[in-house]
């Protein structure tokens, strides 16, 4: 009787479609209701990027394979090699654009993965984003940011500080971080103007290298896990001033925002790698912290914000915990789980 109950409960609680990167297996697990599918042979999924559009999933692997997956059938519709070392993927209009470290190109494809254009940049390319019909990326070895049409026509290039390394886009503002840290570049795509600002200027010490993929952004404010410090900084993305910081119990890795903006959930490396902490955004402090697995690698809120999904790497499980009391209510076996994405 017990297995049936577990199955029913599980079917109720994993209502969302959860896509899980099985980093060590080069595969994706898709959890949907009480069913798990596995999509294999997707390449090296370390630093993989997964995005969803029009009922299809687009996945780019580190070794340059771009896969198009039907969300309903979980079948790979197409798989194409776009580079040998790839770092990012974005949608731009009805195009897909991929940034490569190697070869030194940006590749533009149709939504059906027909290659349309290969742009030779002469540089390792990073921080590929799009906003209202323009494509933006940074050229690590040329110290430039290029703005193109989605079709690949160059609109403008900006000279920036040495070695741009990562970027995020928020409300038409392209924020670029540099390998040598210390400052950020801010490209306002509405006015096509660019300036650089010392990161954390004002109140707090300069923050270390920004890795924007780990930031949580809420209405012009970024919650930044500080590398090597037991703190999450709060940065105003308009003034680029540090507004304050929140003490957290461990060395933070990812900060993720609940859909309603009430909470920022944080996981850790080192001594607290089994824990998740919840920051109340309003109160600016940790309101809960709990051991929820063994080496929690990644986490996401459910769309209603009532639960968190997390990858427990050493337990080979994806777990669902309640918000805000962080109680594990369900778990499902997934081998070597890392990145989580809410699909469907």
């Amino acid at each position, binding site marked *: 009787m017990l297995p049936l109950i577990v199955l029913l409960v599980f079917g109720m609680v994993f209502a969302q479609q959860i896509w899980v990167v099985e980093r060590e297996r080069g595969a994706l697990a898709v959890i949907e209701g009480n069913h798990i599918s596995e999509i294999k042979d997707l390449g090296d999924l370390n*630093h993989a990027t997964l995005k969803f559009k029009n009922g299809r999933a687009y996945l780019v692997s580190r070794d340059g394979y771009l896969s198009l997956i039907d969300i309903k059938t979980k079948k790979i519709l197409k798989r194409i090699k776009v580079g040998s070392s790839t770092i990012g993927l974005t949608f731009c209009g009805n195009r897909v654009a991929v940034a490569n470290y190697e070869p030194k190109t940006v590749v533009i494809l149709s939504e059906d993965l027909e290659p349309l254009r290969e742009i030779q940049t002469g540089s390792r390319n990073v921080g590929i984003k799009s906003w209202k019909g323009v494509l933006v990326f940074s050229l690590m070895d040329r110290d430039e940011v290029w703005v193109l049409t989605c079709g690949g026509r160059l609109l403008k290039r900006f000279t920036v500080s040495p070695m741009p390394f990562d970027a995020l886009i928020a409300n038409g503002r392209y924020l670029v971080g540099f390998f040598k840290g210390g400052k950020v570049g801010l490209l306002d795509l509405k006015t096509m103007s660019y300036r650089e600002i010392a990161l954390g200027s004002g109140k707090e010490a300069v923050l270390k290298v920004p890795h924007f993929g780990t930031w949580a952004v809420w209405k012009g404010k970024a919650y930044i896990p500080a590398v090597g410090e037991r703190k999450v900084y709060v940065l105003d993305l308009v003034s680029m001033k540090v507004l304050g910081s929140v003490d957290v119990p461990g060395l933070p*890795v990812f900060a993720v925002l609940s859909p309603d903006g009430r909470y920022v959930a944080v996981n850790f*490396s*080192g001594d607290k790698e089994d824990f998740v902490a919840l920051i109340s955004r309003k109160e600016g402090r940790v309101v809960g912290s709990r051991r929820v697995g063994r*080496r929690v690698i*990644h986490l996401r809120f459910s769309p209603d914000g009532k639960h968190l999904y997390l990858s427990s*790497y050493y337990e080979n499980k994806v777990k669902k915990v309640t918000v805000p009391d962080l109680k594990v209510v369900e778990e499902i076996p997934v081998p070597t789980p890392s990145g989580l994405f809410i699909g469907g």
Partner: protein
Amino acid sequence: MGKVYIVGSGPGDPDLLTLKAARILREADVVLYDRLVSNDVLSLTKPGCLHVYVGKEDGKHTIPQEEINRLLLYYATIYEKVVRLKGGDPFIFGRGGEEAVFLAKNGIPFEVVPGISSFYSVPAYAGIPLTMRGLSSSFAVVTGHEAPNKERRVNWRSFKDVDTLVILMGVKNRQRIARELIEAGRDPNDPVAFIERGTTEDQRIVISTLREVSENPPEVHPPAVFVVGKVVEIHRYVRDFLENLITLEGIHNADT
């Protein structure tokens, strides 16, 4: 006047000691040994053999090199067979060269007994070949621990196009090294392996990438061999059947 044998004891697994090293150890009157020499190796010596610890740890130089040289000279005058026993190979980052020059200058006969170096044997135990057709046709071995105030600094830029890079004693400076390599033009996606206490029963492997190590370095404890390059991926393909050691493994979690 006795004779000094500068002997490499290999990377850790006592079975990797050479037959010649084992024979010389069995005959030794005194052994001056380093930190990374295992007890299993030392236990090969005959009863009454004197064991003298002259190990150094990073930041804790218990006995300066000059003192080790002086001890070699002293023991060589009163014993017949003096073994200077070092981890790995004595002539690869072992300061064996300096001791050889010292012995020659002082007219002390000596012999070098090479040992299996950790730079290739530790990756091998982790299923990582340094060369592989189609993936790696060159490799370099470099120290990650440069002596303070040293004039000849490591030129990381010169390793931009070397397929496989093996960094010994690089744990402490791992973040800086990863940054130097990315700045030099290496692919930030380059896979990285740290193999802690390689070839011993405590071997532990941490897989990461240059980008991750440069931003949020994984926890690694010395001694560890730091390998950079596409050959690290071979570990993934062979590990399920590789029976050198059962190893505790980790991946780093700075990225998904």
